[in-house]
């Protein structure tokens, strides 16, 4: 898997009303890598995600996936939205099976993979529950299982834990990190939470707002044996403060 974003610009609107949201974005992402984009609102981070998913088209520049120009959405680029993306009329298990059904896989395969991915996200006991009967964290785990079951080569995570409580968010971060280690998937995470990006990703790009552009890229140490420990280690906190200063200087807003 190789994702290549080359000199991508995006504007909305026409003529004098045109508003540029992305300015010359370049990204590279290979199999097994975990990349995070961090920026405040207005940095166009969700737009980048939508362009890579194929839900929108770049105004200029190109996005290639395994050498092929991205022209629309496809199952090889799975996406987890911030919220409201489970089908409310389907049970947890049916939601997980949904993508595989769209792909026309065999019944036996769907049943087997649904059971497997429900186990991966630890929701076997909730298989028959409707989304409204699940907590926010459980719902996002179903959404992740559904994306994984469709066998993407790249997982796009658009602020997947943004709507969750802090404590649940921390356990979900642990969960996601372990999942990524186990599956060896390529992942691209969008977040405004600097700590989240630094805990999970191997590389973090900082975005400046209006128009969105990458202003700083940092490679992160690879020792993540204990995320809870990492959160409070001096080196980690120092780097976090350094990056937070960068973010603050970009739009004057307070970023933790």
């Amino acid at each position: 898997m190789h994702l290549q974003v080359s000199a991508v610009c995006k504007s909305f609107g026409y003529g004098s009303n045109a508003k540029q949201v992305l300015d010359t974005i370049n990204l590279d992402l290979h199999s097994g890598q975990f990349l995070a984009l961090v920026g405040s609102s207005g940095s166009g981070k969700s737009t980048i995600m939508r362009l890579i998913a194929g839900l929108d088209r770049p105004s200029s520049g190109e996005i290639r996936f395994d050498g092929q120009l991205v022209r629309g959405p496809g199952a090889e680029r799975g996406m987890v939205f911030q919220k409201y993306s489970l089908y409310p009329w389907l049970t947890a298990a049916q939601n997980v099976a949904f993508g595989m059904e769209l792909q026309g896989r065999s019944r036996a395969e769907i049943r087997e993979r649904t059971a497997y991915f429900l186990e991966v996200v630890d929701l076997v006991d909730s298989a028959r529950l409707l989304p409204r009967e699940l907590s926010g964290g459980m719902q996002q785990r179903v959404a992740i299982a559904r994306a994984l079951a469709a066998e993407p080569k790249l997982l796009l995570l658009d602020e997947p834990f943004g709507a969750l409580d802090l404590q649940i968010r921390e356990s979900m971060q642990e969960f996601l990190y372990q999942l990524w280690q186990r599956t060896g998937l390529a992942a691209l995470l969008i977040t405004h939470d600097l700590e989240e990006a630094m805990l999970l990703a191997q590389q973090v790009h900082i975005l400046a707002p209006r128009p969105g552009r990458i202003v700083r890229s940092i490679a992160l140490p690879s020792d993540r044996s204990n995320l809870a420990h990492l959160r409070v280690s001096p080196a980690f906190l120092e780097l976090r403060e350094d990056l937070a200063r960068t973010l603050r200087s970009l739009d004057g807003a307070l970023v933790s």
Partner: protein
Amino acid sequence: MRSSEAHPLTRWIPLRRFLAQSWVLGLLGLVTVLLFWFLATASGAVDSLFLPSPHVVWQAGQSQWQSGLLVKDAVASIQRVFIGFALSAGLALPMGIAMGSNLTICRLLEPLMALIRYMPAPAFIPLLIIYFGLEELPKVLLIFIGTFFFNTLMIMDAVKFVPSELVETALTLGGRGLPILTRVVAPYIAPQVFDTYRINMASAWNLVIVAELVAANEGLGKRISLAQRFLRTDDIFVGLIVIGLVGLTIDLGFRFLMRKACAWAN
């Protein structure tokens, strides 16, 4: 807890609980009206030609039932409503989905439909009679005209409010075109569609009676207009009550279907 006389507030709890059940007050309202109806006629305050007593209406109903007229009329009216409304509902569903999901189709048809929607369906009766005579077709078409545009526009609105995340999720899972309409859009709007049908079914009932008042050999509306000619207000009351009861039954049927089919939305 001590006996219910212990405190003035606790004494009324059983009665309050009884009244809190939704059907109790509804029944009370109905009984009250029946009572006033009975009193008004029994006291002789109102001329029995204008307001026949409940008893007389009941007898008129019985005689219509025994002669088989009541069933024949009801079946004729119900049949017209069902054929006309089935046509309307069946065509409005794909049309509404097409207009709600495709901007070009929507822009093309919405102004036209919004215009026709405001033309009162009964105003089409003279044209329908000129085109199709006095048989079943013009009556069925009247119901179609009177409900199709409302059905379509309401379904279109439901489609427009499908959250984009649900559609986009399906796209990123490898979904395309028609399966997205049938597996995402259709299930999401199902509760609103049932409700749309339930609401517009009431107009279908209005229209079938109007059509039968103008021209028909049988039907509940026809019976009412015949009764008027002979000043049989008791028969008119029978017709009105039966129309109400059949309509209510259909309404409850739709609610039941919706509860069964869309348990997730409750």
